[in-house]
């Protein structure tokens, strides 16, 4: 029995249920939400500690031994992702104390948020491919409802695209599971990997691999199926945008990492080569899309797309160093991106708009906020000594070592263009004088507890970014450990099935 694997799923589900019971009282829901998020973070750190000791933590649901029952498996990558989920949960729960409007809370903001977290944690921890589909759907249904809280026109338009593309991806995922089950007759991921390594029918396996690539590529917003993301992420409430930006696409990236290291590792010259081109095109289209935008959250949304490219690049190069880079990149990116969305929320609170043309004067009146923006913004662009520099450095070094010159060149160029976008936001929103048509009275707000609740998560996340940048060694070691596990799927198979492949 290792309860720490199940706790990151049970805690948010329980918190969601309790907040549902406290439907009538917003203040009780808020307290429960913060307590539940902190409990999730503690449980996830417990899981990380236990994975560091034993390598893999496995739990058979209902006592049905693999491959017959549903298995929960945590390896280093899952544990890292769950810890990041916990951190984002705490940050968003604190931010929501002040940012969520009463009308959102009345329609179940907190229960949905925790249901979403349960779906995300479940996706990271399951060892069963069909169960992964179920957790994806749990996550999606919660995200659909969160995205349209408020019911404005833009939200409806964004939601139609978001819902359609995600359902399409789910249908492709489900079809791929069906074909895979027809081929190997099992759903346990370790068992699938074992049976596929002995199977010979490689043509059909490649077809299924590409179906998984398309399904997870849509979820991860990879080229060419990324357009739903910038069309919808900026429409929701800002705390919801931040949560989505940090976690949802990364679930898709995690699924790609899991499936293309464990299951489809037979013909990397086809599948991983394909991923390499996807990665390059994702980076370029994302960053060029951002360059054309003039809205705070839309620029950030396009940058999610371009950053996804770096993570997929790490997977596609498929060398130990590249996987380390990919995992490191995910850790850095989740923290930084959520933080940038939260800062856009504070700017909106102060000036009432996300439009860069109407924003301005923030540096003059709020210098501290400006510094808090610069930390994640420069980290996203990859300036030393912040976390993004080391993440990019590892990925690009892996690219040079693998002699993938074109993609490495693209990665370097995209880093430069990211800096351009961040400087655009800096110059327009912070540096420029406040435009005359904008009402600047909000800038003079005193530091009330309500505003402090918005600042606190931003400061905490910026501190995490600085910590990774200045003291990256333990983080690097964790990424290295997880890359070792991902490159040797035999360890995963042995931990789950108890047989040496």
């Amino acid at each position, binding site marked *: 029995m290792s309860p720490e694997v199940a706790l990151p799923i049970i805690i948010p589900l329980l918190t969601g249920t309790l907040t549902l019971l406290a439907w009538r009282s917003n203040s009780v829901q808020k307290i429960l939400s913060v307590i539940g998020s902190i409990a999730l973070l503690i449980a996830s750190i417990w899981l990380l500690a236990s994975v560091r000791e034993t390598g893999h933590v496995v739990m058979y649901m209902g006592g049905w031994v693999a491959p017959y029952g549903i298995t929960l498996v945590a390896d280093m990558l899952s544990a890292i992702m769950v810890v990041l989920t916990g951190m984002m949960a705490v940050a968003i729960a604190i931010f929501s104390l002040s940012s969520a409007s009463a009308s959102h809370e009345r329609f179940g903001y907190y229960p949905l948020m925790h249901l979403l977290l349960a779906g995300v944690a479940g996706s990271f921890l399951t060892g069963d491919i069909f169960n992964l589909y179920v957790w994806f759907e749990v996550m999606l249904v919660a995200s659909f409802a969160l995205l349209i809280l408020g019911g404005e026109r833009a939200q*409806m338009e964004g939601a139609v695209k978001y819902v359609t593309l995600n359902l399409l991806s789910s249908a492709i995922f489900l079809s791929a599971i069906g074909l895979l089950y027809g081929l190997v007759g099992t759903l346990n991921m370790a068992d699938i990997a074992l049976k596929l390594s002995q199977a010979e029918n490689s043509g059909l396996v490649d077809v299924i691999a590409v179906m998984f690539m398309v399904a997870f590529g849509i979820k991860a917003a990879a080229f060419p199926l990324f357009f739903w993301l910038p069309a919808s992420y900026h429409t929701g409430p800002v705390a919801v945008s931040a949560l989505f930006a940090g976690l949802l696409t990364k679930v898709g990236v995690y699924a790609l990492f899991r499936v293309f290291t464990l299951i489809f590792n037979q013909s990397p010259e086809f599948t991983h080569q394909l991923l390499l081109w996807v990665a390059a095109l994702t980076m370029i289209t994302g960053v060029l899309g951002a360059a054309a935008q003039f809205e705070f959250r839309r620029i950030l949304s396009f940058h999610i797309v371009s950053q996804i490219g770096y993570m997929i690049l790490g997977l596609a190069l498929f060398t130990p160093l590249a996987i380390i880079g990919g995992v490191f990149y995910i850790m850095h990116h989740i923290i930084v991106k959520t933080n940038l969305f939260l800062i856009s929320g504070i700017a909106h609170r102060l000036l009432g708009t996300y439009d860069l043309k109407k924003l301005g004067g923030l540096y003059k009146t709020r210098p501290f906020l400006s510094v808090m923006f610069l930390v994640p913004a420069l980290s996203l662009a990859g300036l030393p000594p912040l976390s993004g520099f080391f993440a990019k450095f590892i990925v690009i070094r892996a690219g040079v070592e693998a002699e993938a010159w074109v993609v490495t060149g693209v990665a370097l160029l995209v880093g430069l263009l990211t800096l351009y976008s961040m400087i655009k936001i800096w110059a327009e929103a912070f540096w420029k004088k406040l435009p005359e048509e904008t009402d600047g009275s909000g800038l003079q707000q005193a530091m009330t507890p309500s505003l402090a609740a918005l600042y606190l998560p931003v400061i905490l996340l910026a501190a995490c970014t600085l910590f990774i940048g200045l003291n990256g060694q333990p983080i690097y070691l964790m990424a290295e450990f997880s890359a070792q596990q991902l490159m040797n799927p035999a360890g995963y198979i042995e931990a789950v099935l108890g047989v040496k492949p």
Partner: protein
Amino acid sequence: MEPIMAIVAGCLYAAAIYMMLRRSIVKLVIGLMLLSNAANLLIFTSAGMTRGAPPLIPVGAMQPEGIIADPLPQALILTAIVIAFGVLAFAVVLIHRAYNIIHTDNLDQMKDTDT
């Protein structure tokens, strides 16, 4: 039986994609519905359609006698149907709300958030 089911599943996929490419959001949702059904049928077909006894093990025995039908694909389909039903219910409410707010069901007029 398998070839017929494969053709039916293929037709469902084709119909689903045709419906999803139409401009009306109502047809879009019908397309999504057909798509999930096509996926379910694909699971059913690709897992192999054995005409066999129910998968029950007699008292005292360690394994079932003779050929049995594989119960797992049916469990998968049942789960997938329930999920698709829930999601579809959401999608129907969404297009209804969207129609009330935007006053059109034409996807070509929902481009405000694209650029």
